[in-house]
């Protein structure tokens, strides 16, 4: 099951909703929105557009986000700041972070994952809370409380790395205990941000007794780097 199935407009722009925006208003939208919108205009895979304020906001954010993923160099940096501003100032901040993760679940290239990590790491408290919630959610629960949405793999890894990078105290207190193996893998990867003794204790535990082979392997490798 794809995360997007329940979160319908997570990666697609409802065309009608965007076109209904007054052109003078649309003119003021960010460059990354314009890029993202153009990108989606080429696609025929639009879901039913929403009509409410939240649907429109979600659609605009989807376009901005795709524009950000598409941008390179300094343009990407500029877009990142705009997308972060959107997330932090939105009334639906939590949903916006969810949209970023959904975009990764739908298409997780190396480049998009890196961009998502860099983005989420500077969104502040929202990513912290969502990472904490996701760490202790059951396997069938999404990071933003939507039931029956599998959440693991690359999106979980991205969320954990971003959160752990912004809040290193989460690494040992939260991420290492996560139900998701990808989040524990991230904890091991991020352990070099902790004091060496703390890192060693976490890595030793993961290397010796984590139920997931990949996590044990990453922990062993990171232990080697500590020595």
């Amino acid at each position, binding site marked *: 099951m794809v995360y997007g199935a329940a979160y319908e407009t997570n990666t697609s722009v409802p065309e009608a909703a965007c076109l209904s925006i007054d052109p003078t208003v649309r003119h003021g939208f960010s460059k990354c929105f314009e890029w993202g919108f153009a990108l989606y205009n080429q696609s025929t895979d639009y879901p039913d557009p929403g009509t409410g304020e939240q649907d429109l906001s979600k659609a605009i954010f989807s376009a901005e986000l795709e524009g950000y993923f598409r941008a390179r160099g300094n343009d*990407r940096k500029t877009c990142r700041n705009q997308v972060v501003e959107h997330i932090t100032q939105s009334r639906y901040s939590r949903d916006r972070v969810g949209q970023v993760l959904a975009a990764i679940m739908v298409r997780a290239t190396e480049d998009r994952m890196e961009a998502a*990590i860099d983005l989420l790491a500077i969104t502040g408290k929202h990513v912290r809370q969502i990472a904490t919630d996701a760490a202790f959610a059951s396997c069938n629960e999404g990071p933003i409380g939507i039931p029956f949405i599998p959440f693991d793999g690359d999106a979980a890894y991205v969320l954990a790395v971003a959160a752990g990078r912004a809040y290193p105290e989460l690494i040992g207190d939260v991420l290492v205990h996560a139900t998701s193996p990808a989040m524990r893998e991230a904890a091991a990867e991020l352990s070099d941000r902790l004091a060496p003794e703390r890192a060693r204790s976490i890595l030793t535990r993961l290397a010796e007794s984590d139920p997931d082979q990949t996590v044990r*392997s990453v922990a062993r490798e990171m232990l080697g780097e500590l020595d």
Partner: protein
Amino acid sequence: MSSPGTNGEEDSSSPLPSLSPYPTFLRKLTRKNNWDNPLRDCDPQKASKVFVGTDNVTSVYLVHDDIELRRIAVAMNQYRGSMTEKVDLLPIRPSELDEIGVLPQQTPSDLSCNLAKKLHHDLELDEQAAVALSRVLIEAQREVTRWTTGSVSKALTVSREEGCFSVNPESRSCACGGQR
């Protein structure tokens, strides 16, 4: 071929990672395990995911010695949240691209680093070619080379002294020969 501005001398500030033999192409990975796990499981289909790029274009850098490797590893962090993020690089030998019939195209890099601009290449890899390349690399038991935060920090200091444009926007010239 040696890196411009180095006269081919060895970097005495080891131990920084090396990828000898050169030349070699470098593919940067975000999640190292996306390569490590399929390598362990001998699964080229899954491994090929690391080569998925926008419009079937995969970005790589061609390096000819340890000094170019060091400069590129540092420059790759230019637009990241921190200049000292760890960097995971998957080496691809030119002969391995020949084997699957892929011709790298030299294209400008988005990085400010003068050397990176020259060494950047695009690989046109559709799904089939990505799987074929993964198969070749898995057969060669190719492992990812990690630049830890410590290695990157060390290399960053050198790049600063050299005047790399990715590291120091005010620099007018770089030891690699770049001028502006």
